[in-house]
Each structure stands twice: as structure tokens, then as C-alpha cells.
């Protein structure tokens, strides 16, 4: 009897320690909603919650890019995701011209753009060994430059295919369609990272590159591919962003870069690499959006939003780092 009790408590504690960061993120969201309901009326309602999740979905999507490159280790980070999305949206808007039959060209262009940007990022980071922060920052500037040249002196014309608008902007009943997409994506990502060789390699390379190398894994290739995947994902997010907004404009994606990194941190992704749970990142994104809503409702506006993000990041990093020190 005694032994059994001991085993079950051991299980419980390992369950909690495994999902501790998820639970923390979920509790924070609940706390914010309750706080919002107390301060501002009508904050806690089904409609408001669904709207919050919808608004947070793009942060969560970009957060996936960040999680993949961060998990691969080597101080991974991808600042170029927002710009990749913008350039894709700007270029494909005209190609699609509001017609469904043109979606395939748009997809091919998105794939090619994301691939090229990802390959360049990955090549410089992994094979030339330049710091990811600098490489992806430089890439961002170059893409922004290209966008500026392309859009100089003329309006960006074109509209997304209706099917993109259906996915990104419309609702089924009262549930925004993009939430279904996010749920589907979360399930697929969790399956790939937990049940396939890809996940094992990604987390292994991030946790201890030397050990992974000596175990016969090509760590440069894994890191290179993490940027390629990030680039392609970012490019497809650009299509969705276009679908959501209905038009393309110059800085439609860049505002998501910092929140996407913040979402990864709030979601418990260790910046040292080697771990990361996408459900956590999604919760992190929802938390940040809820915080934004609350600050907006309080009339603090944009300044309040960014200050709030900063404070939250500081506090969570303090908690996570002190946790690690205790061990």
C-alpha cells in the first residue's frame, strides 16, 4: 500500500513539473480575464474570449517559427519572420487578384520566397557561424528595403483569393475559422515534435550539440533546416495575414516579430534551446493578447501595450531563471 502511494505521488510531481510552465501560462490568462472583468465590464464573455484567441492566432503562428529555431539551440532566433510574411503578401496580392484559381501560383511563390530567405538565414547562421540575431536582423533590413523599392511611388494592388479570406477572416457560426486552423496546427506540431525523428533530433541538437554530434547527427544540417522551415512557415503566414486583412501593406508583418518571441518565452521555451512545447507558445500568445486587450480597455494604448509586454517578459524570466538556479 505504502509503496503504491509513493509511486503515485512521484507521478503527480513529475506531471506537474513537466507541465508546470503550461499551467502557469493558463493561470495567468485566467487571472487577466478575471481582473479585466472586475476592472472593465463585459471583459469576460465567450465572444470576447474567441475574439482574443483570433487576434492572438498570428502571434502564435509566428511563435511557431521562433520556437523551432530557438529549440535548435545556438542562441537561435528569427527576426526576419515578419518581413518574410510582408514581402510574400505584397507580391502575391497582385498575383491572386481576388481569384481562387490563382491561389496555386501564390502558394508556389510563397514557398519559393520562404525557402530562399530560410536557406540564406540558415546558411549564414549554421555554416558560416554568424550570430542568428545579426543574420536575421540584416535579412529583415534587406527584405524591408526590397519592399520599399517595390512599393515606391505606387499603390499595392490586388486582393487575396476568397479562400484565404474564408480561412483567415471569416467565421463558422460564431467561431473564427482561424481558430480551427490553429488547433489543427497545434496537434500536427505536437505530433511531429513528440512522436517523430524530427522532434528527437531538434531537441537533442538544442540541448547538447556536442553529444548530438558524437552520436552521429549532423547538427549543422538540423540548425540549417530549422531556419528553412521557419522561413517557409513565415511566408505562408504572410498569405494568411493577407487573407485576414484583405489588402497588403508595407509593414503588415513586422509588428508581430517581438510579440512572437515574447510568446515563446511566456510559453516556457528555454532560450538556451533543447525544449519547447507549442501548446505553451499558443497559451503565451493568448496571454499577451489578453494583456493588450486589457491595457487598451483601460485606455493605455500602444505605449501601455509595449511596456506591459516588457514587464511581463522580465517577470517571467526572473521566475524561470531562479527556478533553474534552485536546482
Amino acid at each position, binding site marked *: 500500500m505504502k509503496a503504491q502511494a509513493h509511486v503515485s505521488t512521484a507521478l503527480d510531481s513529475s506531471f506537474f513539473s513537466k507541465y508546470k510552465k503550461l499551467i502557469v501560462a493558463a493561470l495567468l490568462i485566467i487571472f487577466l480575464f478575471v481582473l479585466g472583468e472586475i476592472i472593465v465590464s463585459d471583459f469576460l464573455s465567450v465572444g470576447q474570449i474567441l475574439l482574443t484567441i483570433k487576434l492572438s492566432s498570428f502571434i502564435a503562428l509566428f511563435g511557431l517559427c521562433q520556437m523551432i529555431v530557438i529549440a535548435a539551440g545556438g542562441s537561435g532566433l528569427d527576426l526576419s519572420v515578419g518581413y518574410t510574411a510582408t514581402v510574400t503578401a505584397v507580391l502575391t496580392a497582385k498575383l491572386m487578384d481576388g481569384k481562387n484559381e490563382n491561389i496555386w501560383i501564390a502558394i508556389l511563390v510563397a514557398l519559393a520566397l520562404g525557402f530562399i530567405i530560410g536557406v540564406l538565414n540558415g546558411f549564414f547562421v549554421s555554416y558560416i557561424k554568424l550570430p542568428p540575431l545579426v543574420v536575421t536582423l540584416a535579412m529583415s533590413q534587406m527584405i524591408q528595403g526590397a519592399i520599399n523599392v517595390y512599393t515606391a511611388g505606387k499603390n499595392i494592388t490586388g486582393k487575396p483569393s476568397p479562400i484565404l479570406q474564408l480561412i483567415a477572416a471569416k467565421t463558422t457560426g460564431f467561431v473564427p475559422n482561424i481558430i480551427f486552423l490553429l488547433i489543427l496546427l497545434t496537434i500536427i506540431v505536437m505530433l511531429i515534435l513528440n512522436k517523430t525523428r524530427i522532434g528527437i533530433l531538434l*531537441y*537533442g541538437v538544442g540541448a*547538447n550539440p556536442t553529444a548530438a554530434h558524437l*552520436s*552521429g*547527427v*549532423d547538427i549543422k544540417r538540423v540548425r540549417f533546416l530549422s531556419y528553412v522551415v521557419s522561413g517557409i512557415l513565415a511566408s505562408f503566414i504572410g498569405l494568411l495575414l493577407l487573407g485576414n486583412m484583405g489588402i497588403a501593406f508595407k509593414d503588415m508583418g513586422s509588428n508581430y516579430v517581438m510579440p512572437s518571441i515574447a510568446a515563446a518565452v511566456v510559453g516556457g521555451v528555454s532560450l538556451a534551446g533543447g525544449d519547447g512545447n507549442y501548446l505553451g507558445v499558443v497559451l503565451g500568445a493568448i496571454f499577451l493578447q489578453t494583456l493588450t486587450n486589457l491595457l487598451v480597455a483601460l485606455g493605455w494604448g500602444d505605449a501601455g501595450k509595449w511596456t506591459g509586454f516588457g514587464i511581463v517578459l522580465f517577470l517571467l524570466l526572473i521566475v524561470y531563471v531562479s527556478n533553474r538556479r534552485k536546482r
Partner: protein
Amino acid sequence: MNILEAKNIKKNFGGVAALSGASLTCREGRITGLLGANGSGKSTLSKIIAGVYAPDDGEITYLGKKIHYKNPHEAKQQGIGMVYQNLSLVPELTVWQNIVLGDERNAGYFLDDKNARERTTDIVHKLLPTLDIEKKVFELTPSEMQVVEIAKAVSRKPKLLILDEPTAALEKVQVTSLFNMMKELASSGVAIIFTSHRLWEVVEICHDLTIFRNGRNVGSMDFDKDEKDVKKIIFYITGSQSETSIAKTCAETCGETRLSIKNLSLGTILRNISFDLKKGEILGVGGLAGQGQQELMLALAGNFPKIGCDARIDGKPIKLTKPSKAIRNGIVLVPGDRETEGLFSKHSVFSNLIFSKIGVDKKIFIIPHRKLKKECEQIVDILALKAASLDAPVSTLSGGNQQKVVIGKWLGLEIKVLLLSDPAKGIDIGAKADLYSYIVNQVRSTGMSVVLYASDTKELIEYCDRLLIMYEGSIVATLGTEEITEENIIRASMHVEKE
């Protein structure tokens, strides 16, 4: 006079008792040996005394006063110095800058570098006269770094000096100078706590012994009165008096050549190395520390893309330019530093055990969890690996069990040649015996071949069928089964006979 008296110290780490009533007395001018298997609590007690951890219970009296240090800095200021197992040097600073770090003195407004260099030279040269104190620490060999670490602690003129496994990284000559310095310090009144896995060292240098098992005192000896009885000490440490000596039977079982290496070269680190490894043979690699042994092991595991080498396995030519190439040909490495080279400490035992298998097998896409769980349970059984569960993070295991995980991660693959780079470093006597008996059994029953590098010569003598002696990156001697004796090894290692 008692310098330090620790009584009935208790310490728990998250429900696990590391110390459950341990006591230790250190007297002026005496060297006290602290012995025990890994996880017996000797490191924990040392760290409590040095102010790294606070005890849960018990009292410590130092120089007649009860102490409760909040951090190592306070302890250091009161004259308690500790040399840690994991080095704490700054790689970018020079030897002398490291030694005076945190203890700089001024001449006028500026630092007195001249005085600092003098202070450093005095101490360093007692330990290692050839060491250039202007060198940066990252340029040093591991044994030289260890010397600097010791010099740093000694330079603060401690009244109590704690040396936690200081000799693990040292060469024999350096161990002798360290012992001389310890004797000198002791005769000037310093009390010293000394721990080492090499029993003969402890017996040689210590005045008295305290032995721990499972966080408790199980025995003590005072060599003024007691005889230096090694068997009795081992009995205290392990709790059982067993002699595990495995007879060498290679002569009969060794078959045809398994691995043939010709003209292996790597810059100036490895020069023109050639040897044959037979089926079912344990080939030792010995010599002084840092003569290219560890690099040879890494080279055989495919770690150096620029290697020049003509290698054949079972007669088939192979390239050793990538780890994956070596692994696919059945050559696997258990690296020297398990934490930085062998393990994913944060990840579970299960993830660690399956990583290599998944890593090299490109055909796997979806992980067959159930099948692998079963395989891992078998591996855990075979190696007598003690872990709370397969899902427990590797960082929660003891050193010996962590090392078993590093070996275990290869057992899912077909091993032809097992490269062992100092596999018993920092693990206790019981786990060491387990490990070697498993390896020897495998070799004798399956015809697996082993290349073994060990920093402890005793391990080489006991387990090797043949022994290569390395000196400055070349093989300078090969000893056959009958010739492997301590005397022969030392003579060959010093490379006295020049050709």
C-alpha cells in the same frame, strides 16, 4: 587543536537525503581523507563546509565558533578554501590574473601587477615549475588548469583547505608535487580535507580517514594508531569485501583483425599512428595524461573531418571523417566528459537511450515508442541502471548511473568496436566494477572489440589484453598481456629509451 568540527549534519535535496547525520573533525596540521562511493555525501559535506549549501540540521564549529555561512565568499574570507571538481577559472585571463582574481591589491590608484606576478610565481612553481604564468588559461591542458585551480585556493592562505578530487586530472609527477605542497601546508598548521577515488593516494598522504556510506559515517581511521589496511577501507566504502578480478583470456578468444588503422595523422596532435585491433580484444591506450589519447579516441569515432588515415573494418576500407560514418560501421564512442559530450542532462533517460539509434537511422520517421520502451527496459536491466523511471531526467541520476546511460545509448545498435575514453572517471568503486565486468563479459561472449583509455593506470593493468603507450601524439611502445605491469608502463610512458 580542532580547526573544524561538523556534527550530525543533515541535508535533503527535494526529498532525497544526501546527508543523514554526518560528522567530520579536522585537526590543525593534519590531512583528513574523506572517502565514500558516489552519492555517499562527501561532496555535499565539503560544499556545506565551504558555504555553498546551508545544512538542514546539525552544527559546525570552526576555530571554536559556531558558523552559518550564507555563501562561499564568507567562508573564503574566514580562511576556508575549496578546490572544486569542476573548474572555476576564467579562460580568457592569464594564469596569474586568475590566481589573484578577487584578491587584487593596489599600488597607488592602480593594480599592483608586479606583486601579483610574484605571489603567483611562488606558488605555481612549487607545483609545476614549467608552467608559464603569462599564458591564458584556455591555452592550458586540463592538468595544468587543475594546478592553477589549486594554486588559486592556496594563495589565499587558508586555515582549512578542501581538495575535492584534485588529482583526477593530474599527471603522476604533478600529483607528487601536490602531495609535497600538501605536506608543507600541513606542517605549517593548515588542516586539509582530501577526497580522491584513487585509494592509494589517500592511503599515502592522509593522517586520518573518515568514510561515508549513504550520507552517514561508517568508519574512521587514524593512521597514527591504525594500520593502513586497504581491504578494510574498501569494506567500509562498499559494505562488502568482494574481490572482483576478471581473468584475462584473450589469447584463446581473440580472433582475426577487426579494425586496422594505418598512418593516422592529425596535425601535430596525432602522428602516424598504426595498429590492429582483433576481435574480442581489449586494447588499452596509456601514457602520461594529455599525450593525444583522448584525441585518438575522438579521431577513431570520426570527430575530425580533416583526418588522414587508412582504416579498414573487417577488411573493408572505411572513412572516419564523420561520426555517422564511424557509427554506421559499428564504431561507437563513450566520451570522456559525460556531461558535455555524452548526455542531454535535461532530457529523460528514455530520450537519451534512444537518441543515437534514432539519430543515425534515416529510415525511422515515426518513433515506435512501445517497442523502444521495451528495449530500454532491457538495457536498464542489463546495466543494472538505477533510475526512478525511464522518464526521469538524466540530471537526477548519480554519476555512475549517468555513465551507464552513455554506454546504454549504444546498446540498441550493433557494436563492433567500443571506444571507451576514461569511462570510470568520477564514478565510485562499486559502479566502476559493475561497468567493467559488463564490458568484459560482452567482449568475451560476443567478440566485440574495445579500445580503452583510462587515466588510472590500475584500470589498464587489470583489464587490457594489450597496451599502446602514447607520447606526444605517437605510439612509442606496445605492451603484450604479460608485459603490462606498473613499472613497464611508467618506463614506457616517460619515453626514456629514445630510438
